[in-house]
């Protein structure tokens, strides 16, 4: 290493480590900027998946039925599962009209209770059935059941089924008129299989639409339909929230940049005497500029990394507090944040340096 270069690095090092709290102030300001920008960007990227998850709690976003309301092929669930992957919730439904003891007709639905419970978390259910002879009665259907110590009888084409009512379901819509029984019990009773699959596919609006297309090609001739009102609400809310987040991120980044800018500018101006001494003892303009730039770069880089770590933690904490799920640190944000920090620091150093260059070193040293 040449003497010049080693001198350069020596001055750079002393500038960073041995001069009171000025580099520290710049470092803190840049770290704050990087923290804010990281936190906002991480939330921005994480928000969409969190909101999409919220919308899954609405229940099924796709329905699959045979065109003429006949039974589905017996391997339909396994095929749908292999098409959509393990994250999808698939609830089969089979329907029949049964009669109670006093000949009141009622819709009986056979289904997979575990899947329905996951699919429709919004159902208000007093107790989910877990044995094969237990049934879930809709709030309006319940009064027609002629219960005898929780037991009741249903008739379908001359075949009788004895059931225990364990719970009541309240939804405010058609489900309240029905009786839900486990699918195995239903199939044994009526000999009929499921005619409808209610599916909750994970992901965004577009991913759900492509899941519909995939299902349609896996089940030619069947009716695969997206639940349109849900998708429309989901698409609208998610895209609007993304725009709001983007606008907020930009505004906050602008404000923080302003703060960093004024702090750094004054810290460079405060060092005009260093600048003057260096010029007076013969260093070239390029060397001085390189020195200031090197300092700014080093500080900005370290501050960017620290800010990224702190910002990711802040974003994770916010999303834990608000959505009860952690936003994972977004690696793609890191280069962006460091770049923003470096650009900010260089810009903040350039303007005062240009101003200083117009002044004679002697004048600065005399204190004018």
């Amino acid at each position, binding site marked *: 290493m040449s003497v010049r270069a080693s001198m350069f690095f020596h001055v750079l090092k002393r500038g960073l480590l041995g001069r009171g709290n000025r580099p520290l102030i710049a470092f803190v*300001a840049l770290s704050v900027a990087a923290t804010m920008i990281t936190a906002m960007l991480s939330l921005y990227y994480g928000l969409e998946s969190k909101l999409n998850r*919220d919308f899954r709690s609405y229940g099924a976003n796709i329905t699959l039925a045979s065109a003429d309301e006949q039974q589905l092929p017996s391997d339909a669930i396994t095929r749908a599962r292999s098409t959509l992957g393990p994250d999808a919730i698939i609830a089969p439904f089979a329907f029949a009209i049964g009669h109670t003891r006093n000949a009141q007709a009622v819709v009986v639905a056979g289904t997979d209770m575990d899947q329905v419970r996951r699919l429709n978390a919004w159902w208000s259910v007093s107790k989910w059935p877990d044995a094969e002879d237990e049934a879930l009665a809709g709030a309006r259907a319940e009064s027609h059941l002629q219960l005898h110590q929780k037991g009741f009888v249903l008739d379908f084409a001359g075949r009788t089924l004895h059931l225990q009512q364990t719970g009541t379901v309240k*939804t405010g819509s058609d489900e309240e008129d029905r009786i839900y029984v486990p699918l195995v019990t239903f199939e044994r009773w009526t000999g009929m299989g499921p005619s409808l699959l209610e599916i909750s596919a994970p992901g965004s609006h577009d991913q759900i639409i492509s899941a519909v297309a995939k299902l349609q090609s896996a089940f030619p001739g069947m009716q695969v339909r997206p639940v349109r009102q*849900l998708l429309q609400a989901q698409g609208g809310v998610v895209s609007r929230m993304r725009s709001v987040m983007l*606008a907020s991120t930009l505004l906050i980044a602008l404000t923080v940049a302003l703060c960093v800018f004024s702090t750094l500018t004054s810290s460079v101006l405060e060092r005009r005497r260093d600048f003057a001494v260096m010029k007076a003892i013969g260093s070239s303009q390029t060397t001085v500029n390189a020195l200031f730039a090197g300092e700014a770069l080093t500080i900005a880089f370290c501050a960017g990394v620290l800010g990224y770590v702190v910002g990711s933690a802040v974003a994770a904490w916010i999303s834990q507090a608000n959505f009860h799920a952690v936003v994972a640190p977004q690696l793609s944000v890191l280069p962006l944040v460091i770049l923003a920090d470096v650009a900010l620091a260089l810009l903040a150093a350039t303007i005062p340096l240009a101003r200083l260059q117009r002044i004679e070193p002697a004048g600065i040293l005399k204190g004018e």
Partner: protein
Amino acid sequence: MFLRLLYQSFRRQQRRKLLAGIAVTLGVAVATAITAVGVNVGDKINRELRTYGANIVVYPEDAALQVRIGDQEVKPTSSGAYLKESTLPNIKGIFWARNVLAFAPFLETQIQGPSGPIRVFGTYFDKQLRFGTEEFSTGVEKLYPWWKVRGEWPKDSSSDVLVGSQLASRIGKQFGDSIDFSGLPARITGILSTGGAEDDAIVAPLALVQQLAHAPDAIDKIYVSALTKPEDAFARRDPDHMTPADRDRWYCSPYANSIALQLREVFPGARAEQIRQAAQNEGTVLSHISGMMLLIALAALVAAALAVSAAMATTIIERRQEVGLMKSLGATASTIASLFVCEATLLALGAGIVGFFLGDVIARRIGQAVFQSDVSITPVLLPMVIFLSLLVTIGGSTAAIVRALKLDPVLVLRGDA
């Protein structure tokens, strides 16, 4: 003398004052804009979620069980329980009437088609109603914005109908054709696609279906879409077991349950229930989004405070020589400090007001761009914003003023500090 110093400070150092002023203005503007958007976003998203359709349903107390699987229906022995169409406008008379965005009555009947019975729904498309002196329009066009019609929506007073897309291809009808409505000829103005049961049915004006079913003034169900507050533990309590004060508070909160109760009061003999799928899940989404915006507004405030105090500190540090000169001429520390505080106050007031209005403009821009509707800023925010801007500007200057006062005037004037 003091006032002259103050005046000259603003007159002579215009560039410096301008820079600090811009910093305060921008800080205040950003904080105002994001707070305003944050306050409004809950309401806007609530409206967006209402595109999901109704969240409250009203039906007669002794309605028969619905027994239907797809096409196959066991006709229940009709209990003849109907609600009265003529009482519908009363919905606008409930306490939370302003939160009711849309509603539509339904009456269902059947006609004999070429290959079996066809379901017919009677409803309002976009009906003009009057409650007291208030005129309003409501119907499925507002309630279910995702319904798609190829062709035109029928008029409520006409005998025009919509035919569901599946039914249309099954019976081979197109819009413009006419269909026999048990002796009443009806014109098909559009093909309806909803993704639901209506795809396989006919949707007609309510009056026409009442005529068809020989049930004047009758409706089966009313679907209501209302802006509601997310349900919390208080909302789930039973109003019959509350203290009068609690009951009043419950009644006057726009919970789905309390709006349902108010609807029950205007429709005697009716039940009103929240449609849990819409009501419950909407609450989750809304509370998450509002929580998020609150945190972001907080972050914006912190960022603005940082920016403003940094800018103030910078301008004061740059004026060390002035401080040194004043000190050496015999000014006391308190005189100098009060001069700076006065300057900061003037700056904060001026820039705070400008910033507030700039923030207002930014918030409106965001509202227009994202929600296609205005974001309203309450005037209450103005004194709050000014107060905050004063607090932050003076607070941000204090440390720098103290630091400047500590310096030895001799050193400062020589340029050594």
